[in-house]
């Protein structure tokens, strides 16, 4: 069953196009990473899925219903981001108790254990928390709510590296014990790729890729060496990135459609065959030019 189904989804804010003709579906009980550069439309997409924003055109269904202003979708979706509005009058433990009443699947033991582990002060007010602490608290509420669809939109804002690592572990542990559909938007693909099953890559409001995470790691390959040799091997292939190294040496990232023997030949011809990480691939696939930032400096 698909938890989210999107067909030709578009969203405009005045004259700005945030999403354009987006089609994809997200299967139940998967962890999907939503990645893309700033302004790719990640937050807009997630807010439409959560029922906060209205679509402009196309179709989106969450749990088989249009999500906008839908109580059923709201009851089964938890949306975590860094500006979750919470009453300034309640302290953290009162806020947890309040959240608990809204969600029948709420796991209070988990909430208290995580609370303890991250040493949050139950008597502190949410508005007085530091950025990282706020994110940690919101994450705890999001996990403990045990909603069938849990959306984390840039949940690690302000968290230090140690807390982020703990959070990824906690998310994975809880997901394994209580499978549900999780969407995680982040810029830090390198950090989260190990817990992701699927990756949905957006670029300028459109889908660039939607693949299982392990396929993404083998999707492209990098060749480095003498320019002519690289050109010979990459002829007719989709080139994602080209970088100049020294006078006569280049690096090219291309679609990995080589056979084993072809790659061995490339090595024999003096080329270095390099893996392209998921993070680099996503950067290549979403950058406006094939040369990346280098193009700004090489104006020929």
């Amino acid at each position, binding site marked *: 069953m698909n938890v989210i189904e999107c067909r030709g989804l578009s969203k405009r804010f005045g004259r700005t196009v945030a999403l354009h003709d987006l089609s994809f579906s997200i299967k139940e009980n998967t962890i999907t990473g939503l990645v893309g550069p700033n302004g790719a439309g990640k937050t807009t997409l997630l807010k439409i899925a959560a029922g906060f924003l209205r679509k402009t055109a196309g179709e989106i269904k969450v749990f088989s219903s249009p999500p906008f*202003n*839908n*109580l*059923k979708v*709201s009851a089964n979706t938890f949306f975590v981001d860094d*500006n979750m*509005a919470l009453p300034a009058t309640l302290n953290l433990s009162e806020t947890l108790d309040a959240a608990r009443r*809204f*969600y029948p699947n709420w796991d209070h033991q988990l909430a208290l254990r995580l609370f303890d582990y991250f040493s949050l002060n139950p008597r502190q007010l949410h508005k007085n928390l530091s950025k990282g602490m706020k994110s940690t608290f919101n994450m705890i509420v999001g996990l403990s709510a045990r909603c069938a669809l849990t959306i984390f939109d840039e949940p690690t804002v302000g968290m230090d590296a140690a807390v982020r690592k703990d959070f990824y572990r906690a998310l994975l542990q809880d997901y394994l014990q209580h499978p549900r559909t999780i969407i995680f938007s982040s810029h830090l693909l390198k950090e989260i790729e190990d817990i992701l099953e699927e990756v949905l890559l957006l670029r300028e409001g459109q889908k660039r890729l939607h693949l299982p995470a392990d396929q993404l790691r083998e999707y492209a390959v990098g060749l480095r060496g003498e320019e002519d040799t690289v050109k010979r091997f990459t002829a007719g292939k989709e080139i994602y990135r080209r970088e100049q190294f020294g006078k006569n040496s280049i690096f090219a990232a291309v679609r990995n459609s080589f056979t084993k023997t072809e790659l061995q030949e490339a090595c024999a011809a003096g080329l270095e065959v390099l893996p392209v990480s998921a993070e680099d691939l996503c950067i290549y696939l979403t950058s406006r030019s094939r040369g990346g930032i280098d193009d700004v400096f090489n104006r020929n």
Partner: protein
Amino acid sequence: MMSLTETSLWDAVKKQYVFKLQSYANFFVSLVIVQLVALLFSAGGMAGTSGIGWNNILVEVKLYSGTGIFIFTVLCTLANSVILTLPFYRNIDFSFVGSRLSGNMANIGFLVTAGLFGGITATLGSILLRNIHYYTGGGGEILKSFFMITPGELVTGMAVAVLYLILFSTAGYFAGVVVQLHRSLLVLLPALIVGLIFYEAANEQIRIFSRLIEFFVFERSPFHFSLKIILIASLLWIGAILLSNRKEVR
């Protein structure tokens, strides 16, 4: 698969209502503080204080009234109802389970509760004011007409106060929702209202606000008065719900 939970509208409204009562409990505390301040002002004698003298006798008439307490209560309730429509407070409804309809309905519940609380405490405040003067005497003679009231009058007074507060908070909430539709309305709406008041003051034929006030104030039948308030308040609530039902949040 995590099982899908079913939530009825009523269920969501109840949960949001309880959440609001808990989160905004400080409103009730500040209201009582405001009422006590108003009580202090009123205890010194307010409007209509006058002195008449002839031959060698000077008669000073001091009017003590609970109206001040009520006006402060109205202002407090009105401010509270507008605050509920601000984006931050609106977004709190969408941190947990809720729809625009359930959020609005929980707000209705909260404002009706606030009206009940404010109306009852304001009326009790004016009783307290009477007691203060009864026991301190104020250094003069108390004219007993309207001073002693029957329990029936007390209850009627409370009911009228509660109904007025509900009317004012509803109007405030509706105005808040309208202003949230577009930023320009924040200037346009008050300008329109103030403009109309001046226009009406300048033209004898125009009677919009005076008719509106007479519609409620001149009503002598408690039943019809309640009916009028409930009707107008319901219309404003429905308007607020319809206006905010398509609004994007967060």
